[in-house]
């Protein structure tokens, strides 16, 4: 028998190995960041309105909503799940937040707490369906997407919620030292989520469950409880995002967030989260969210129709997911 293991790896092989080990995330984040910078420069040159304080402020708060919801989506995607209900749940949280201010005289902070609770409740249902009843995340959240949107129309009578006090705009249009309040909220959310995922035990379990659910179970991790908790947490963030979105337009819009799930998924995947589970970072997701917001904003400034915007986002999603699969295949063909 000449059963000798592979001979000492050559320099090239070792370099490749090192690269793959260290840059798996960095590659997608770097690619996305490069695209972001290129797009930013291109838009600055193409439109005189782009690099204005007003527009940047606008992009900031627009990115904020997508980013908060994409952070939620990222956590779910890391567990090998997907949340299609984020748009509907954001709309539900937004209109409920607006309603309690208008009809019950809640303060904007109390309304935000209610919106977060609404989102968390929807997340709990998602979580119980996935972790408890064992439904595929795609189906569980597809149901919530429909049920949530239905509830939005029921509670609003399919009419927007208007006549809100000025103070309602604080989260979406307010500012602190010239920085949009929404951006500050996003920064806090992103920092907390990033720390949770990378430094905490819960975060470790999120990756473990997405990477190998059976291994997590055998390691004694309470997978049902932890998986449900991921959906609850994601729902709470979506609720917050919905409230910020409602606050931006100073009203509760029943039709808000249709297609938002695609933006959120795209942002996460562009930033390096893998639909196969076990991989994803908040930093990448932020870059992805910013990129999507820029595409949307730039299209408006350049007068590109909203229909083309959707085509562009679709192309970006294809590219990102293809890249994800390509990366996975390379990883699996290790050696």
């Amino acid at each position, binding site marked *: 028998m000449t059963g000798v293991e592979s001979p000492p790896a050559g320099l090239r092989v070792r370099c490749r190995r090192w690269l793959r*080990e260290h840059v798996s995330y960095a590659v997608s984040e770097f690619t996305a960041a490069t695209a972001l910078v290129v797009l930013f420069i291109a838009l600055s040159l193409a439109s005189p309105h782009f690099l204005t304080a007003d527009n940047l402020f606008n992009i900031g708060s627009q990115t904020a909503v997508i980013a908060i919801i994409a952070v939620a989506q990222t956590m779910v995607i890391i567990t090998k799940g997907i949340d299609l209900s984020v748009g509907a749940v954001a709309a539900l949280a937004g209109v409920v937040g607006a309603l309690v201010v208008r009809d019950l005289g809640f303060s904007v902070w109390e309304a935000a707490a209610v919106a977060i609770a609404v989102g968390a409740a929807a997340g709990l249902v998602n979580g119980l369906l996935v972790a408890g009843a064992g439904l595929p995340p795609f189906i569980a959240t597809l149901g919530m997407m429909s049920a949530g949107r239905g509830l939005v129309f029921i509670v609003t009578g399919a009419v927007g919620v208007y006549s809100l006090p000025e103070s309602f705009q604080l989260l979406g249009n307010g500012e602190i030292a010239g920085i949009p309040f929404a951006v500050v909220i996003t920064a806090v959310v992103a920092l907390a989520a990033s*720390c949770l995922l990378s430094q905490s*035990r819960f975060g470790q379990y999120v*990756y473990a469950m997405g990477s*190998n659910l059976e*291994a997590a179970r055998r390691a004694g*991790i309470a997978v049902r409880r932890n998986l449900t908790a991921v959906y609850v947490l994601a729902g709470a963030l979506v609720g917050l995002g919905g409230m910020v979105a409602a606050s931006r337009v100073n009203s509760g819009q029943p039709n808000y967030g249709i297609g938002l799930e695609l933006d959120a998924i795209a942002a996460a995947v562009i930033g390096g989260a893998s639909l196969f589970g076990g991989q994803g970072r908040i930093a990448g997701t932020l870059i992805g969210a910013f990129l999507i917001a820029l595409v949307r904003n730039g299209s408006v400034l350049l007068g590109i129709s909203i229909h083309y915007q959707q085509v562009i986002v679709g192309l970006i999603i294809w590219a990102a997911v293809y890249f994800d699969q390509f990366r996975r295949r390379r*990883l699996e063909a290790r050696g």
Partner: protein
Amino acid sequence: MSATGDAARPVLEARGIVKRFGHVEALRGADFAVHRGEVVALIGDNGAGKSTLIKVLSGAQPQDEGEILVDGRPERFGSPLDARRAGVETVYQDLAVADDLSVAANLYLGREIKRTGLPGMIGLLDKRAMRRGAAEALEQLGVRIPRVTAPIAMLSGGQRQSVAVARAVVWATSVVVLDEPTAALGVVQTQRVLEVIDRARAAGRSVVLVSHNMPQVLEIADRVEVMRLGRRTARFRAADATTDDLVAAMTGALVTEPEDTAPA
């Protein structure tokens, strides 16, 4: 843990284990014993009940009848967690490692070290301590991997297997159960895993090893217990046995156990 016990008393013992799946009796009064610091190979033909016995010993499938004793005390293994609490760690054939997590994170999966004080109370991990602990443990067991921060997905099959075995050895206070740990490995990789088993024995752990590889069994094990038709039919000291003996026992041509322990 009271490491010292009666030397003659097995650290893990199964007596008269019966396990039925519907009308099929996979185990019909199976006995098994492993002593401290001993490597015992469990062999038998396909369908002899090895895997079922392993699942009973690891708590994955509780037995219908019979008892399990740990250090002479009867224990009820209702779940893998019960077995782990009693100091029995199992490595299944499919390994069950999380590919995206680092080697260190896998070693500590489910047993993470938290930071002290307030950061620990809010669930923050002491990653440095885990890295250090993982590196030390792997070093002691002679497991060579590039870095403990490397994701498991980056390792070769033998390295992954070694890490899985190492994890079990590190946490097992008494017995490590290995189900076909080298079935999918090449010669050199197999040798590495056997070295880990050797070191585990040297560190005072007991190892139960399921294997089909007779020469390997005789090389690594101190004793061999042979199962046939859901019962233990033969026991050998590895030093005294030959491959022919083992095969004879597996096929029923050689029986060393008294027949009267068999149920009617």
